[in-house]
């Protein structure tokens, strides 16, 4: 038998391009972006063909539904991150400032979702690719993922109306290159993390977060079918914002804040019914370091709660889960991510 090569699992390509409208996929992507992991592509539903006709078994299955869906964890690069933010934050969410380098892309969530065309390039033995082309895809969840010792990552969940197989090979307008040496894009090191439990805007710099994830999500997003195999309608539902972090305890302020309503309760204080709003303002640096390539995330109103830690006989330091949920801002936007790069045009 002749020895044959298997298809390598690490040579996929992922890219996406902004659509001007639903139903009009673009021919080529704006950005091809490196990923850490991905599980995305065509989806289908199969149901039993429950026909009775004298046989002892069901005769098979059929497909009533087909769509595009999955998860991707992307590298966070200053040039391509605004493409992912526009995908989630919606049509015309990007405000660009600056006449020269750096330009700042500040995002505000809009109600009108921004459809994108999504390509999954599957490797074929011999260094070529075969493409799945997702059409009318929406980013229904976007996570900012920070972990000490790791590069900053962007998690996304996407849902799309349809997908074309063996699609025409695209030519990305921009390909995010991985440098031959050194680190890449936004990173954990050098971050400035400001967090206040009961004050806004945030001014207190903290250093005790081991990890955090900020999630922006349409948790009830659904696509509805009527008379087609692919969806005919979508409903984005409500939008939510949440925060979860591994929090090293240096004092009991967050614990007291959670249960007694204030960081420093007086003697014999009863549990409090109040859930005060705090804030956060995180600035994530780029490696190699550049003040002109940062990403800043501001959440001016967020309700924090610390999960009650438990004693441990091994004597290890106390780390607890700190979570937070969106509270209605007194005015303004609930979250404003801002990315610095040298791209003059709007991403949205």
């Amino acid at each position: 038998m002749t020895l044959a090569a298997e298809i390598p699992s690490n040579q996929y390509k992922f890219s996406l391009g902004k659509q001007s409208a639903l139903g009009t996929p673009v021919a080529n992507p704006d950005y091809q972006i490196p990923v850490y992991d991905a599980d995305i592509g065509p989806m289908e539903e199969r149901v039993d063909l429950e026909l009775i006709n004298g046989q002892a078994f069901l005769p098979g299955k059929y497909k009533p539904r087909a769509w595009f869906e999955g998860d991707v964890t992307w590298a966070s690069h200053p040039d391509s991150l605004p493409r992912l933010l526009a995908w989630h934050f919606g049509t015309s969410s990007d405000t660009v400032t600056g006449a020269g380098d750096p330009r700042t892309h500040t995002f505000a969530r809009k109600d009108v979702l921004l459809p994108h065309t999504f390509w999954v390039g599957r490797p074929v033995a011999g260094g070529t690719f075969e493409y799945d082309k997702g059409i009318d895809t929406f980013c229904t969840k976007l996570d900012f993922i920070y972990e000490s010792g790791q590069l900053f990552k962007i998690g996304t969940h996407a849902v799309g109306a349809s997908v074309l197989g063996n699609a025409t090979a695209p030519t990305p307008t921009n390909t995010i290159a991985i440098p031959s040496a050194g680190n890449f894009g936004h990173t954990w090191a050098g971050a400035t993390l400001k967090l206040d439990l009961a004050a806004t805007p945030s001014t207190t710099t903290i250093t005790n977060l081991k990890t955090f994830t900020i999630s922006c999500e349409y948790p009830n997003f659904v696509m509805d079918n009527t008379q087609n195999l692919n969806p005919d309608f979508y409903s984005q539902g409500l939008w939510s914002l949440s925060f979860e972090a591994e929090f090293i305890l240096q004092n009991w302020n967050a614990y007291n804040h959670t249960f007694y309503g204030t960081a420093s309760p007086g003697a014999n204080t009863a549990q409090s019914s109040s859930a005060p709003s705090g804030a956060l303002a995180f600035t994530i640096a780029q490696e190699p370091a550049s003040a002109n390539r940062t990403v800043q995330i501001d959440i001016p109103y967020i309700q924090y709660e610390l999960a009650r830690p438990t004693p441990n006989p091994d004597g290890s330091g106390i780390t607890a889960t700190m979570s937070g949920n969106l509270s209605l801002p007194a005015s303004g936007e609930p979250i404003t991510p801002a990315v610095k790069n040298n791209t003059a045009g709007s991403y949205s």
Partner: protein
Amino acid sequence: MAGKRRFYLCDPDTGKPVAGLVGLASRPNNLEVKANGVIDIDKLTAQQIDELERMAATPSHPVSESEPEAIK
């Protein structure tokens, strides 16, 4: 003009007026702003001005309703 609302686009770091594009939910989706930072609201709808107002109420957003130092 007395009483007329004015919105400005400001550099998020320096607070000074700056050129750029303001994202609006309806056309013009990317409203161009000149180097003096003044956002021309004459042709905007009430809904778009509400949108500007919401951005201006966000401390970290570059749209501002207070007059930047460099213009005064």
